[in-house]
């Protein structure tokens, strides 16, 4: 199965709910008028894109329709498609950087979004490419988190550096950095404890971890991936904002896209903070993490049933 169809399969439910609405909206209109725009705006809001971003998108759409003198509702849909893709790709790259030995990938986010699972999947992916991977179990807070990562390390065949539950996460990171350096590992993957972005002390802790990585591995690329649950609503924008202040986020991992949630909030985040989506999670299996392709993502969301 190609990557493209895998994404589509993962997104099929996402697509269905969005699509049925979109198609029924498009079909209900014979001409392009104000009501059509309003209905389209509603569809965007329903996918968690947010009121402001949705209005902005519709505003852009309205301009395009005017300048291009578009009369067909179906063409309007294509324009919408283009606008959505543009937002996601404008000026950013969704490739994961892996420069230096080891290249650093740090995974952060609020509680329960799927950080540890995503790390397991990322590790398996790099192992498959023949790279050596070290996992740092720096979620020393949640009960069972270290054991959970151990299971994933085992599945992926990666090394894991850990300490006791409750120990200082910065110390775990420090150990892992040294271990990865000595072993000349290709990738150092750092798990961190889930934390709500409005907890000041926990965000300070994150800053400290990031600083250690920055100081100890000055020549390595540092990917800081914010994991977002696709079911999350407008609060995700605050998450992006505050996590960005603690560590320089380079990309988003959008998880749980195999449900009915649409993950539209990534448009708002890209629009406001210019953070691109890099990976998407479409299931619980070890292979269910995909590189993000904006075209495919929007395609899968907008494409009608017949063309799928």
């Amino acid at each position, binding site marked *: 199965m190609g990557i493209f169809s895998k994404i589509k399969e993962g997104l099929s439910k996402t697509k269905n*709910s969005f699509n049925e609405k979109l198609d029924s909206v498009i079909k209900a209109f014979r001409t392009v008028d104000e009501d059509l725009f309003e209905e389209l705006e509603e569809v965007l809001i329903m996918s968690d894109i947010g009121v402001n971003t949705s209005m902005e998108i519709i505003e852009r759409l309205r301009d395009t329709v005017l300048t291009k003198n578009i009369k067909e509702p179906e063409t309007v849909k294509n324009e919408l498609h283009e606008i959505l893709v543009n937002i996601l790709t404008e000026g950013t790259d969704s490739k994961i950087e892996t420069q230096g030995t080891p290249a650093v990938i740090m995974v952060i986010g609020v509680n*329960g979004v799927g950080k540890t699972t995503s790390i397991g999947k990322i590790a398996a992916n790099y192992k498959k490419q023949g790279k050596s991977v070290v996992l740092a179990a720096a979620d020393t807070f949640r009960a069972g*988190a*270290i054991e959970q990562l151990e299971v994933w390390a085992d599945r992926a065949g990666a090394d894991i550096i850990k300490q006791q539950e409750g120990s200082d996460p910065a110390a775990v990171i420090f150990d892992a950095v040294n271990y990865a350096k000595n072993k000349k590992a290709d990738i150092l993957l750092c798990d961190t404890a889930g934390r709500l972005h*409005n907890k000041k002390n926990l965000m300070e802790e994150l800053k400290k971890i990031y600083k250690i990585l920055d100081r100890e591995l000055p020549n390595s690329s540092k990917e800081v991936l914010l994991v977002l649950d696709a079911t999350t609503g407008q609060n995700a924008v605050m998450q992006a904002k505050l996590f960005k202040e603690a560590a320089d986020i380079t990309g988003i991992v959008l998880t749980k896209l195999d449900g009915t949630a649409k993950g539209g909030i990534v448009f708002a985040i890209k629009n406001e903070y210019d953070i691109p989506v890099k990976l998407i999670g479409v299931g619980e299996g070890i292979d269910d993490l995909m590189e993000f392709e904006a075209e495919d993502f929007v395609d899968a969301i907008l494409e009608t049933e017949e063309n799928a």
Partner: protein
Amino acid sequence: MAFESLAEKLQSTFKKLKGKGKVSEKDLKDAMREVKLALLEADVNFKVVKDFINSVSERAKGAEVLESLTPAQQVIKIVNEELVKLMGEKEEKIQISSKPPTIIMMTGLQGAGKTTTAAKLGGIFKKQGKRPLLCACDVYRPAAIKQLQVVGGQLQIPVFTVEGSTDVVDISKQALRHAELHSNDILIIDTAGRLHVDEEMMQELKNIKAEINPSEILLVVDAMTGQDAVNVAESFNNELDIDGVILTKLDGDTRGGAAISVRAVTNKPIKFCGMGEKLTDLEVFHPDRMASRILGMGDVLSLIEKAEQAFDEKKAVELEQKMRTQTFNYSDFLEQFEQMKNMGPLSQIAKMLPGVDARALENADLDDRKVLRVEAIIKSMTPGERELRDKITPKRKERIAKGSGTTVAQVNNLIKQFEQMQKMLKQFSGMNMNKKMKRLGKMGIPKNMGFPKF
């Protein structure tokens, strides 16, 4: 992109009308648009918002708003009332089965917080003198069982597991037998997170339900959930006929509009809410307060309640006496700080105040450690200095700074703060303490009563 409060928005909508006299239907429509946007920004589901706006508009069209001198307040009042009505007007408890054990089954999506909440719930029952048993039925997520064992251990609640088994129906059956044999009167079953569209996994829950017939099936929902909350809640409710909802991660800064969506589509009450990572951080859900939070009006009621609990009545009377006679000194200042501390972390208190929005809090730097610094400074003063008998000279300031591990500038800051507080309290004297708290609520934190900035 912090949220503006609905109150602010409505105020500005109606401000345009000043001098125009009466409110027209068009004005009302504008106001309703603001309400709609506020609810959507708070993640209430679009369809739910639409229905809600329709019913509120009807009421608002009545004379109450159109002829009111304070239309903004009237609209807020109506919106709030209707929201509370929608959310359920009273707190709801867990039904205790007349024939023990009471079986509670936790369900929900991945990462909602089922395992943590199961333990917290057990903790609440244990505190009530009951004998809860936790049962680990999340056999899929790596280390989920271990997680329940650890949190159960921390609360000294037994955790039932069957090594190596993935037959959750059998595990829950065995757990029930175990509970009966060991006279556990509460059995809490933790299940794996699952997608509501995963038919096979939903069937698993139905099988457990059919076998052990739980008295309470609770759906655990992340408070940050967006538009999809309706699909999730509707599916779980259709498949399992849930008895209630627990809203988690409400200690974040989300508005929590999912609460309304879930309630609206299931008509099932929200019974508890998760307020933090500590195992005691599970609270009874207050629908009326949630309504205020969603509207961005702060949680005045909760604050008042907290203040009432924490404020020592006797000390308050003493303090009042001091204010009257204007002998408020550093010892009193310190005492007041300690009372405030009893109310909980400052950031939590501040969040509950109306008019204090997320934006303001970002810069406010309400660090509890700063309170400790204030304590250190005051405690480094001599009794004479504390009671204002001795003037604090520059030399004394140096000594105080050394003693408290701070700088003279920080000591100066505190003194300034104290003097402002003194001044303000003089204005307050004459009111009783109760009124003062209420006034505090109305004003938000007065600027000069804020915590010293160092």
